[in-house]
């Protein structure tokens, strides 16, 4: 921070003044020192002289010296000790202002040696008779914790702090909450803020009486509470609602968070629910009349709120209209919200506005406005025609970037409403020459190719692009290739030459593998089977979805719990933040519960607890099977890195889970049962007990059949009423599992009826690493509510059928894998010879590549491929007559560049194949 050096003369002069006898002169000198300090000059050389001025009864001088001390104590720890005595003395001063000042300043001196001396005075101040001192001391605990957390715990300050939550003075309560919240952030599991109905009541009382800042702390703390039932939820909402009329926007937004979260628990038919919805709109609108910085944060949050509950602001479209002198960051956010609120009722107004914006000066804003028109067309079907004509008007302006944006969005409109607006193509073609951005060029080429049969000179148009083929970006090249092939299939006679030209450009003259591959595929298709080519290339395309930019529901729920925070500004979960991640817990909206006897909901403050499928007899099971799985008995060199070891443990955890899930076949069963058939035999586990899901019980299991992963669900209606409208959705998971189709529950489920459904799964969904790796979080919806549960799938579901590696490749890969990726363990008591084992394993898509016999030992080399393309290689050593197998595995993540989590997969594999 020090950019300036103070010249020696100046320091000397100040030194003399500081040591002056005259009080006034001293004070002026200290002021000069502080002034230099504030602009970043180094005046640390004056430390002893300034500290000498500390023992004074002049409060201003004392404060100034304290200011100096706080800044420089760190760099002069030995000197800072000199100040300790004065601090301790000041903590006993009859004037509470001085006591508070002393304890406050001591906490700011971030020197370890001093903290020890701080403990006694702090303990006294926490119990001081004056609330001003107590509230200052509360904050001091947080400071001290930041410097030396252990000390704070050892001294029992945390308990004293917790007691302060019940203090009679609201300011003390607020500061205690603030201090505890800050400490809790670095101790996510410490359960410091143990919220229960009594403490909530105290907080709500303090809420009415403390300062605006205290209200923010208390509201943020309240938001972490999980009310027992809807009645409690409602009563908290009622007491928080007045905060919506506070002048401080941060208070308002924190109150909105509490209400948005707790209203989730209220039944929708309740009158109060409607009242609450109505009350939320005005304060949100008011936030938009504040300073632009406040508006920005408010808008980012409103963006979340309108996605969760569009009904709140549906009549307030106009407040989001852009003023021309709004800062650009406000303009862009407003635009986003306008589209989210667009509906048939207000679309005319919105379009008129957007058209207006498209003539503004700022290029970014204009582009976004044009895109917005396209999004409106896709969102509100009735407006599509009007949107298209607006876009055409804009194209007529001939402003280059407007035209290009318009063409990009018109392409999307064509994909949403095929065969409807093709009449505009002629107008688009007129602007072909002015397009210089790849996205716009690609869009235009797509349009020409798609509608080649209606454009007379389509071949000429495409040919004109072909001239500079190699200068185009990949996006345009690929699009051009496809478009010309389409054209050829539609008008084969005239365009033979053109298609040959583009195919040779793509396959022979290009360095881009994507382009070459696509070129070859087309080439082969066209030369072998033109009819098939037609079916492939001109296949009907799926319509594009209405809202591609909506935030995914589980993330949205989490973000709603974080309204008003940085997470809500970035629309990312707090765990995605670099610094904050250490202390973050995933928050969930509470589920609605009718009666208190259901027990507290696991959501709210904590992580969602999965229904536990891992009974504690895990160890017992291991014994029974006599599988020495955890910890792995390593024969040969132990895994070299500890990280690896950890991975192994995880994996084994995963393996055990699946073991536990299966019925216990007798140990003397005749050899190995192929894993997938054993899965079929698994008794379904109860994933979602009826208690937690208003009478819907879900149990299930997984199977792999004919290369498709199936989720076998058994749904039982244990409630009194009929259930309909079932739907299912998965959270992102480690292997991208996602339902491949809707949940097929065709007829309503009447009470006490059970049905079995088989849900095929795909592995192309979004990926996120889960803990444990094979964890799957599922949401099931029916006409009553949405329920969440999580379950774990056996990893062997993911072994694909084409997992047999070529021998040569296997050999090369095996050698290439670094040793650290290898690990070994033993499987005991498996009475099978190597051939039988190999056959059994093959049935689970674990393929034996080679076999070798060395000194009476059979060595089997095997490969497995996971659905995400990660290869796992294994070596199985079987000694005839010895029931113990040694498995050493290597995984190919080094070579496939695959996920880091693959080491974990390895173990599961080997554990599970010997499961019987």
């Amino acid at each position, binding site marked *: 921070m020090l950019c300036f050096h103070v010249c020696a003369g100046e320091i000397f002069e100040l030194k003399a003044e500081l040591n002056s006898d005259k009080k006034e002169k001293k004070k002026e000198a200290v002021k000069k020192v502080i002034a230099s300090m504030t602009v970043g000059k180094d005046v640390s050389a004056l430390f002893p002289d300034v500290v000498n001025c500390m023992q004074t009864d*002049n409060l201003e*001088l004392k404060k100034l010296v304290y200011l100096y001390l706080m800044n420089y104590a760190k760099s002069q720890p030995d000197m800072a000790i000199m100040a300790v005595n004065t601090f301790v003395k000041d903590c006993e001063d009859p004037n509470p202002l001085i006591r508070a000042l002393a304890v406050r300043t001591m906490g700011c001196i971030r020197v370890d040696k001093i903290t020890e001396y701080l403990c006694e005075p702090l303990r006294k101040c926490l119990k001081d008779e004056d609330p001003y001192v107590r509230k200052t001391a509360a904050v001091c605990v947080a400071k001290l914790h930041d410097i030396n957390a252990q000390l704070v715990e050892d001294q029992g300050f945390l308990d004293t702090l917790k007691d302060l939550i019940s203090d009679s003075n609201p300011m003390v309560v607020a500061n205690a909450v*603030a201090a505890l919240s800050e400490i809790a952030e670095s101790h996510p599991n410490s359960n410091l803020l143990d919220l229960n109905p009594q403490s909530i009541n105290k907080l709500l009382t303090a809420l009415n009486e403390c300062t605006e800042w205290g209200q*923010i702390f208390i509201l943020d703390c309240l938001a972490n509470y999980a009310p027992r039932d809807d009645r409690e939820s409602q009563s908290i909402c009622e007491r928080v609602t007045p905060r919506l009329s506070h002048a401080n926007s941060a208070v308002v937004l924190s109150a909105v968070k509490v209400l948005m979260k707790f209203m989730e628990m209220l039944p929708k038919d309740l009158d109060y629910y409607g009242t609450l919805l109505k009350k939320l709109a005005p304060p949100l609108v008011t936030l938009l009349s504040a300073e632009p910085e406040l508006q920005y944060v408010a808008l980012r949050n409103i963006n979340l709120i309108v996605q969760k509950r569009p009904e709140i602001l549906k009549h307030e479209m*106009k407040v989001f209209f852009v003023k021309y002198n709004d800062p650009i*960051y406000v303009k862009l956010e407003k635009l986003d919200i306008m589209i989210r609120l667009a509906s048939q009722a207000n679309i005319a107004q919105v379009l008129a506005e957007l058209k207006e914006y498209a003539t503004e000066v700022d290029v970014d804003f204009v582009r976004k406005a044009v895109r917005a028109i396209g999004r409106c067309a896709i969102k509100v079907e009735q407006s599509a025609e009007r949107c298209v004509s607006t876009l055409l008007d804009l194209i007529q302006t001939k402003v280059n970037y407007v035209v290009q944006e318009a063409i990009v969005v018109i392409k999307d409109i064509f994909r949403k409403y095929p065969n409807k607006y093709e009449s505009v193509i002629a107008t688009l073609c007129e602007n072909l020459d002015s397009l210089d951005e790849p996205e716009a060029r690609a869009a235009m080429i797509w349009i020409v190719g798609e509608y080649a049969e209606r454009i007379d000179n389509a071949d000429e148009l495409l040919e004109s692009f072909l001239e500079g083929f190699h200068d185009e970006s990949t996006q345009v090249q690929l699009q051009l290739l496809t478009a010309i092939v389409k054209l050829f299939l539609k008008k084969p006679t005239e365009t033979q030459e053109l298609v040959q030209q583009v195919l040779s450009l793509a396959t022979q003259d290009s360095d881009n593998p994507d382009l070459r591959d696509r070129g070859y595929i087309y080439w082969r298709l066209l030369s072998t089977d033109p009819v098939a080519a037609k079916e492939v290339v001109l296949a009907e395309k799926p319509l594009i979805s209405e809202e591609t930019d909506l935030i995914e529901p589980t993330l949205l729920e989490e973000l709603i719990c974080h309204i008003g925070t*940085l997470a809500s500004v970035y629309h990312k979960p707090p765990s995605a933040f670099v610094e904050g991640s250490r202390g973050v817990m995933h928050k969930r909206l509470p589920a609605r519960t009718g009666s208190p006897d259901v027990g507290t909901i696991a959501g709210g403050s904590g992580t969602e607890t999965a229904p536990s499928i891992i009974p504690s007899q895990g160890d017992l099971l291991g014994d029974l099977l006599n599988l020495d799985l955890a910890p792995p008995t390593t024969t040969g060199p132990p895994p070299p890195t500890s990280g690896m070891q950890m991975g192994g443990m995880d994996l084994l955890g995963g393996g055990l889970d699946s073991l536990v899930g299966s019925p216990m076949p007798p140990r003397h069963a005749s050899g190995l049962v192929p894993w997938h058939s054993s899965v079929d035999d698994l008794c379904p586990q109860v994933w979602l007990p009826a208690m937690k899901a208003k009478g819907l019980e879900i149990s299930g299991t997984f199977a792999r059949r004919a290369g498709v992963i199936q989720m076998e669900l058994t749904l039982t209606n244990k409630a009194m009423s009929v259930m309909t409208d079932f739907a299912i959705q998965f959270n992102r998971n480690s292997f991208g599992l996602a339902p491949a189709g809707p949940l097929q529950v065709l007829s309503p489920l009447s009470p006490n009826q059970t049905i079995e459904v088989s849900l095929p799964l795909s592995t192309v969904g979004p990926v996120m690493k889960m803990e444990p790796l094979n964890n799957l979080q599922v949401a099931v919806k029916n006409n009553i509510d949405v329920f969440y549960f999580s379950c774990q799938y056996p990893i062997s579901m993911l072994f694909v059928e084409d997992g047999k590696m070529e021998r040569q490749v296997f050999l090369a890969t095996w050698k290439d894998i670094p040793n650290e990726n290898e690990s070994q363990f033993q499987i005991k008591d498996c009475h099978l010879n190597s051939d039988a084992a190999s056959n059994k394993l093959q049935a689970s898509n674990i393929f034996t590549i080679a076999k070798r016999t060395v000194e009476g030992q059979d060595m089997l080399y095997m490969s497995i491929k996971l659905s995400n393309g990660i290869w796992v290689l294994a070596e199985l050593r079987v000694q005839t007559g010895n029931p113990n197998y040694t498995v050493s595995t290597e995984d190919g993540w080094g070579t496939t560049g695959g996920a880091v989590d693959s080491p974990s997969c390895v173990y599961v594999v080997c554990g599970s194949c010997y499961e019987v």
Partner: protein
Amino acid sequence: MIHSLFLVNSSGDIFLEKHWKSVVSRSVCDYFFEAQERASEPENVPPVIPTPHHYLISVLRHRIYFVAVIQSEVPPLFVIEFLHRVVDTFQDYFGVCTEAAIKDNVVVVYELLEEMLDNGFPLATESNILKELIKPPTILRTVVNTITGSTNVGEQLPTGQLSVVPWRRTGVKYTNNEAYFDVVEEIDAIIDKSGSTITAEIQGVIDACVKLTGMPDLTLSFMNPRLLDDVSFHPCVRFKRWEAERILSFIPPDGNFRLLSYHVSSQNLVAIPVYVKHNITFREGSSQGRFELTLGPKQTMGKGVEAVLVNSQLPRGVLNTNLNPSQGTYTFDPVTKLLTWDVGKINPQKLPSLKGSMSLQAGASKPDENPTINIQFKIQQSALSGLKVNRLDMYGEKYKPFKGIKYMTKAGKFQVRT
């Protein structure tokens, strides 16, 4: 919580820094400077900037960026609100909030910042309390202090700090007891080309200046409280009473404060007080453009429209203008292309107009964008929404105070598209 604060001037120099926890290196501001460079206008710097280890949250006021550094998850609005409070306090203390004023009073600034935050937690932000702790610098006080050797730091615990009414100190004494209220409404509107209203809303505030002895308890009632459905109150207002009776009941802070702010939304009909007739045209192929502007009063409830100021950002292609105002003065800055016309009062009998031609760059194509016209005006003695105070009563004290209510309407963001 708030870790540090940096004050940055418009040329990108840090001229003050304050740390409430450990010292954060100045270099963290480099991320801010980058964003500042990217922004086309000073006000376009995004208010929240992430850096690898910190977040920078800034506000821009009086051409100074107040950049707060935070390290953990802190509600950004909390920080922004606090920064605005800091600026308000500086303005309150020094009259203006400029780089020069802050540099001249650097020690007071430091003392204030130290009082306002402790370990990043707000401590005392009410101006009443701060003024008891640290007296604002005045020329007189500086002289007196020098002579007597007394200080401008209060020796006593501020009395309001912990009472149930933290915003008011005890022992207030005045010889003249007075309570004045200003109802000020700003109208924000967007008017389209054809003169019809796209949006219009009113942001109203009631600012008070209360100098009353002792602990007065005031009630303020309105003729038409139904207008106020979207309000934000000063903490002193008893919310329950308002909910039940639509009466403002409060123990006021001492001195100046904002009693409430309200918002009359576009759902209600808002009267537009002025109209604009305009004809701004550019012809293709000609290096001249026409400019005609006429202003007139509309629904003003018989009150005069004063202090009218028109400005408009003309397209970049406009080289110069040759215009004739029927009244007032006009300027055009050929560099920024900003046209300003100081109209003054609108006389309904003789409407003010500004007519003439604009010269364009020869050969350039006609500008794409249409200029937006920004209008400022004032209407005295009237609140546009029609809000009227019924009566003000005082309880708890014996004396009879002077009471006064003033109404005023101003243009906020009043924009006419052409």
